[in-house]
């Protein structure tokens, strides 16, 4: 069965709720979800909950139509959590946004230069979320002699491994309205699978991370099978050149965004996270 649904205003929301008390974290997760989700229902996004008392937080993924609000949540859980950090993808915009809410005031924001004039739009209290990578892998097509692009490359033809740090913007849509069209396009993420964003956004020009290094690849896309970005060994982004179905003359990059909190390098969030919990338990 194919479910086609006019998608608009579908927010994929990723929350990290910091526990106020390590040993007495909230276990009434049913109520917690009800306080977060409008109409107590997730909108076109699979729900994921991961409570980790050893790490002091609860992670929640869900979907919202329109704007997410946390009024009910703070009314009920004022004493149980110290802060809500959130990343969201809003299909009206192109990139993940990031926000922080400590409950002292709605959208008490760490965002500099924030315009509070429109109280209704979360966009005004958030900023573009930044994700990190520390390695790029280029897979050349069979039989191609890769050009010399001047990278410090570890080459095991036809694969290039390039140790390079950088960051990028991304569109981490986790809604599943498209998933049953072609499950073979789906790739796992730390939460639920995603498909490539071709046909939604980014169809022609990829927002190249570290343009000086990566942009030269664009000229060779006909010879490239795939480009992967990794963070601490985990694949966080996959890009595949393809011919546009609607315009067979036109090359496009199909992109899969596999980001999660682990490779989120938002400056303020990193500071918050480390200040609050300087001594993480080392998991073996």
């Amino acid at each position: 069965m194919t479910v086609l649904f006019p998608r608009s205003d579908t927010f994929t929301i990723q929350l990290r709720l910091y526990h106020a008390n390590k040993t007495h974290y909230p276990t009434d997760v049913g109520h917690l979800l009800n306080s977060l989700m409008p109409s107590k229902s997730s909108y076109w996004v699979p729900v994921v909950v991961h409570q980790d008392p050893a790490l002091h937080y609860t992670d929640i993924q869900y979907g919202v139509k329109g704007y997410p609000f946390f009024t009910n949540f703070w009314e009920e859980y004022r004493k149980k959590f110290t802060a809500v950090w959130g990343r969201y993808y809003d299909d009206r915009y192109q990139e993940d946004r990031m926000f922080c809410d400590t409950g002292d005031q709605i959208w008490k924001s760490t965002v500099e230069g924030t315009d509070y004039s429109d109280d209704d739009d979360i966009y005004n209290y958030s900023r573009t979320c930044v994700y990190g990578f520390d390695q790029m892998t280029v897979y050349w097509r069979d039989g191609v002699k890769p050009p010399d692009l001047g990278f410090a490359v570890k080459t095991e033809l036809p694969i290039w491994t390039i140790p390079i740090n950088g960051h990028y913007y991304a569109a981490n849509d986790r809604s599943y309205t498209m998933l049953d069209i072609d499950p073979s396009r789906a790739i796992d993420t730390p939460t639920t699978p995603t498909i490539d964003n071709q046909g939604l956004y980014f169809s022609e020009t990829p927002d190249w991370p570290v343009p000086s290094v990566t942009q030269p690849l664009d000229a060779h896309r006909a010879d490239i099978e795939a480009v992967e970005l990794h963070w601490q060994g985990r694949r966080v982004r996959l890009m595949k050149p393809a011919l546009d179905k609607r315009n067979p003359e036109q090359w496009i990059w199909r992109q899969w965004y596999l980001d999660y909190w682990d490779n989120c390098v938002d400056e303020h969030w990193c500071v918050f996270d480390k200040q609050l919990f300087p001594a993480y338990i080392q998991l073996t």
Partner: protein
Amino acid sequence: MGSINTFQLRLFHRSHHLVQDVGKLLNLLFGEREWSHYVPVVLKQNPILGYTDIQYGVKWGPIIDEMMDQYNRFFRAAWARYNFDGQIPDTIFSHTDMGESQSVTCYYGFDHLTVRWHEGFKPPDLGFPTEKHNQVWSIPLKGRYAAYNSRCDLSLDGRSLMNTPTTAVHECGGEMMDVWKDCFHHVPSLAQFEDYKPHLEALEFRWNGRLVRVMKPKLRRFSEKREFEWSQWYLDHWDNCVDEAWLAFNGLTF
């Protein structure tokens, strides 16, 4: 506090439509008090694989009839593994349109064993097909065992935590159980390691490359003799569950 059951539920979807009111679903499962009892909650709806996994804790036995009645149009089957207070090995049962099955002991599979001997000890030949790298033995050995997969959140301090596919676990041990008789009766050859406890660093069991169980000898506390017991970490999940009815349901073999 009473007893704590760690409950692992896998709900198989009937269609691509996911349950949206997940809060209500959880409250039905949690029972009267509507909270998870000393077990961190982990939940994942996977529309591609066609199931939802839920980990939670309940005080008494798991009751899923009511939930399955109310969500019948979403779920074609529920499989449940649970551990009762770390006292009885994990148990498994299913709930389908045909009704609820008997609870039976749940077995988990491994396909590889790594044996780590202490430096300086010359390991004996125990008759396993072994690749030896100094003090480390790599043994391609297939078998199954019973286990105690509690995910209780008490005593999560400590530094002896290990990751599982859901939440971290602390070491278990100290009970007077005979691990070879209670857990490894299907692989009797492993009982040989009992006599070598003072010389062993660890036994590591793997399934498809994933670490699923770790055993480490440690000195028994409050004992005047120099006695060793096993510290154990149970890291099992659905991936290495080899219960026969479960395998048949999923079209798998062991």
